[in-house]
């Protein structure tokens, strides 16, 4: 599913977070959105899934502007989306199996045994076995992410959104999750949108990278475009220097 974002603007009170975002998310590819904390990455994602409404601009999915949809109509669009939240957002009152089964129970008429088959299959895709009976509190951060991913792909979505999938994980686990994102993407042929701070991981998994700064896209291109750019803002970010045009907000 291709997603075209045009002139998206959003402010909260006097604080304007998105100042006219223009961005195309290519169908069937992984696009990584990078930028400083507070640059509007999460806000942008919340617009794509309809949790926030823009002040101006459009988000076009399958030829229709989804910012004009009513809440009820959004339900249909959302079934094509799978979201992996930053802290996995697993339902802690349910077991791993119930978490992955949850969207299936709610949206499909499958029998309980068929649902358990799908649950096992999705958990196998993310490399987990025999964990159905555990509760999220019993899992490590990396395992939670995997379960979160298994739940996100339960309904075979066309678009997967990852909100900082490797934040808070050790380097080895981060790379494992990156591999998982790449494999899932290949396996299911989905359109992936990844929000990340992790530079090596970004270069590894991205087909396209977009960097946001002050609510705008400063550079959109392939990983090679990013490696070769002379843009001082992008260079400072990639080289992780404190000195330069990017400033940490006090």
């Amino acid at each position, binding site marked *: 599913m291709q997603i075209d974002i045009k002139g998206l603007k959003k402010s909260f009170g006097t604080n304007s977070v998105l100042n006219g975002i223009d961005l195309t998310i290519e169908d069937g590819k992984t696009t990584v959105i990078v930028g400083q904390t507070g640059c509007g990455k999460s806000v942008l994602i919340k617009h794509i899934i309809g949790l926030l409404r823009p002040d101006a601009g459009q988000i076009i999915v399958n030829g229709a502007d989804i910012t004009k949809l009513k809440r009820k109509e959004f339900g249909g669009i959302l079934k094509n989306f*799978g*979201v992996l939240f930053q*802290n996995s*957002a697993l339902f*802690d009152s349910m077991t791993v199996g119930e978490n992955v089964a949850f*969207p299936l129970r709610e949206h499909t008429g499958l029998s309980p045994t068929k649902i358990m088959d799908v649950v096992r299959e999705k958990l196998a895709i993310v490399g987990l076995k025999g964990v159905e009976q555990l509760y999220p509190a019993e899992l490590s951060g990396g395992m939670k992410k995997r379960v979160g991913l298994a739940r996100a792909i339960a309904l075979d979505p066309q678009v997967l959104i990852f909100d900082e999938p490797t934040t808070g994980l050790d380097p080895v686990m981060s790379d494992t999750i990156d591999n998982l994102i790449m494999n899932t993407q290949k396996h299911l042929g989905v359109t992936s949108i990844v929000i990340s701070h992790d530079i090596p991981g970004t270069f590894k998994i991205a087909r396209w990278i977009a960097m946001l700064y002050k609510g705008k896209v400063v550079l959109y291109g392939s990983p090679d475009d990013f490696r070769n750019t002379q843009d001082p803002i992008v260079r400072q970010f990639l080289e992780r220097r404190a000195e330069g045009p990017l400033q940490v907000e006090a």
Partner: protein
Amino acid sequence: MTFRPIAIFEYIGARFTTLLEELGGIFSTFLQSAGLLFVPPFRMRLFLKQMEFVGVESSFIVLLTGAFTGMVFALQTSYAFRLFGAENLIGPSVALSLARELGPVLTGLMVTGRVGSAMAAELGTMKVTEQIDALYTMSINPVQYLITPRVLSSIIMLPMLTILFDFIGIIGSYFMAVFLLGLNGNRFISDTIYMVDLKDIYIGLLKAAVFGAIIAVVGCYKGYFAEKGAEGVGKAATQAVVISSVSILIADYFLTALLF
């Protein structure tokens, strides 16, 4: 710093606006959750689970507080009634106060402490850990999934708990009156039945249902809009208890004035 008299009005105005916003938010949460009761899918399991949590699991503390309230009430009234030899009124006066006031109000306050705070904390935790956003992204209406069952269960279970409270309270006062104060047991029962109308009990139960709605709606509202991590969740739980308790006492006054 110079003294600005206008600042007082600004302060009062700001507090008043916040209060109105809060009331509006609570009321619209109630309307939304009630409206979604009639929209499929109907998740029976969630209702039953909440009924167990609100009702069955609260029954012990309701029994305990009910028994002691009835006993102490009989003891206190006996001092006064003995002065003019009207001990036979102990039963009816305890039963009437329990049915009309103490049953619904004390049950409401006990359940607020147990259930209202738990609802605020649970929904608040779900909110700050993005579980509510996760529900939304799975195209499940979080209000319908989380709030509607809690509100309906509380509206149903609070009257049930009040019946329990009234019943055990009257039994407590019976034991007090008959075994400790030496009144005639048959007289106690017949006087009580003679003096207490079914209407007294019904209106008490109606009050309890309103209190149930207040407890669940305030608890869910506070949790659903919790912010800023663990501190926000704690604050939501505390505020839920305070707002519900005060609202119950205020609503009790108006319901009594209107219904009796």
